[in-house]
């Protein structure tokens, strides 16, 4: 079966975070948890020329991401029980009956996706809204995006223009080979860039 994945068009995203809200709503998550995050990255500066005029190269861009359903996932690598696994369609999901809630997946994932829900007794994460997809629908985040900046489906069916996600604040795609394509915008900074800062730390940290 084809590997499924997400696509994000940074040239369209306005940072409205409806995708986050839709994710939280559909999965009935508490306010402090979402399987999708929108990071606001800011950078640049103002400089004054000799004639007293000011110019700026300041910028803002958004990166919306959930689980990258990696080909080489760090979470499945460290999972001691095999509960964290890749489904036939390449979606990384949790077998809640096998999960012991040790939290290693949460520590290891460079995309910050799995989270141990102690009340449920196991890890929870983005499963690409598997039930919706099985009904022929798009994941909640994709459907909610008013700018049509998100897509989901077999990797070879995703919109053109995307490349394996390689923008800040995400890790270099060589680390886990994410099935997550991004169409970068003009302001996008490369992975590992320290020239930008996360402007909405209180929301996402």
């Amino acid at each position, binding site marked *: 079966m084809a590997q499924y994945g997400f696509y994000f068009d940074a040239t369209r995203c306005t940072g409205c975070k409806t995708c986050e809200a839709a994710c939280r709503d559909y999965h009935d998550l508490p306010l402090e948890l979402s399987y999708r995050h929108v990071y606001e990255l800011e950078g640049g500066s103002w400089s004054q020329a000799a004639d007293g005029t000011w110019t700026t190269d300041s910028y803002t861009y958004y990166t919306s991401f959930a689980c990258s359903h990696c080909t080489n996932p*760090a979470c499945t*690598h*460290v*999972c*001691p*029980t*095999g*509960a964290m696994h890749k489904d036939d369609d390449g979606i990384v999901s949790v077998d809640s*009956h*096998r*999960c*012991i*809630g*040790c*939290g*290693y997946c949460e*520590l*290891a*994932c*460079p*995309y*910050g996706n799995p989270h*141990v*829900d*102690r009340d*449920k*007794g*196991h890890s929870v994460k983005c499963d690409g809204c598997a039930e919706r997809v099985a009904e022929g629908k798009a994941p909640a985040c994709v459907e909610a995006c008013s700018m049509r900046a998100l897509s989901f489906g077999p990797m070879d069916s995703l919109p053109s223009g995307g490349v394996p996600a390689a923008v*800040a*604040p*995400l*890790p270099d795609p060589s*680390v*886990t080979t994410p099935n997550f394509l991004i169409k970068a915008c003009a302001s996008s900074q490369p*992975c*590992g860039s*320290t020239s930008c*800062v*996360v402007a909405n*730390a209180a929301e996402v*940290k």
Partner: protein
Amino acid sequence: MGSGFEHTALAVFTTLGPMGAGAFIALTYAFIAGQPDEAAAKRLDRWTALPLAVLAVGFLGAFMHLASPLNAFGVFSGVGASPLSNEILVGVAFAVLAVVYWVLALAGKLPFALRKTLLVVLAALAVVFAAFCGLAYMMYTIPTWNTPLSIVQMVGYMLAGGTVLGFCTVGFAQVGLPKGASTVALALTLAGVAVGTVGFGVQIAGLDAIRNIWSSAAELVPAIWMLLGAFAVCGLVAAALTFVAAKKAFAPALLVVACVVVAAGIFVARIGFYGLYMGIAL
């Protein structure tokens, strides 16, 4: 990122688990060099419950860390692939062998040759267990932990804590040891403190070179050098107490204090270690 205290249960495990296991190195020395008579051996066998209890409390910490402890047996399905499974496998192998040794010893069915063999194997397994405790944190997506120094410091903590606990056990059992025993106790404890301090210290010194979108790793735990210092001081105090106790026929009261002090030092260092958690990107 966090303060490290969110992993308190794991810190209890990585403090007491290797400490309980490491005590068998001192017990091995006590039986091989001390050659205790039958009565003394019996006392020492009874008091072997002490390191086993410490080991059990350590495992309880690991158990409490899980969100679904009742599924815990599932960890063995990841043996070979998951560093956590490997760690628990080695720890459980040690615990099972240690309990078998203890039961046989208490039952009086342990000829000296077999006792010696089992003790040497247990002492070696204690080192391997400590190493695997460190290895479990070497994940390529966590650059602050992904260093062999994570292993080195665990071996140091095991040796420092285990030696003090082992000689404390000897003290409770009132087993006579050869004249050089105090030097052996001091040397093993100091070696553990040195290895632990160097292992953790070099790791801390390398934090400047690591950063993610949030900060430099050196900013994660501002008091990290203090925490390392606390371990070193606790280790030195425990070593001194052990040496003094050894000169007084391994006075158990002093050694109990030494055990508490060294365990506190290791625990503080472990909390610091967990506070150094930093993802490769976020």
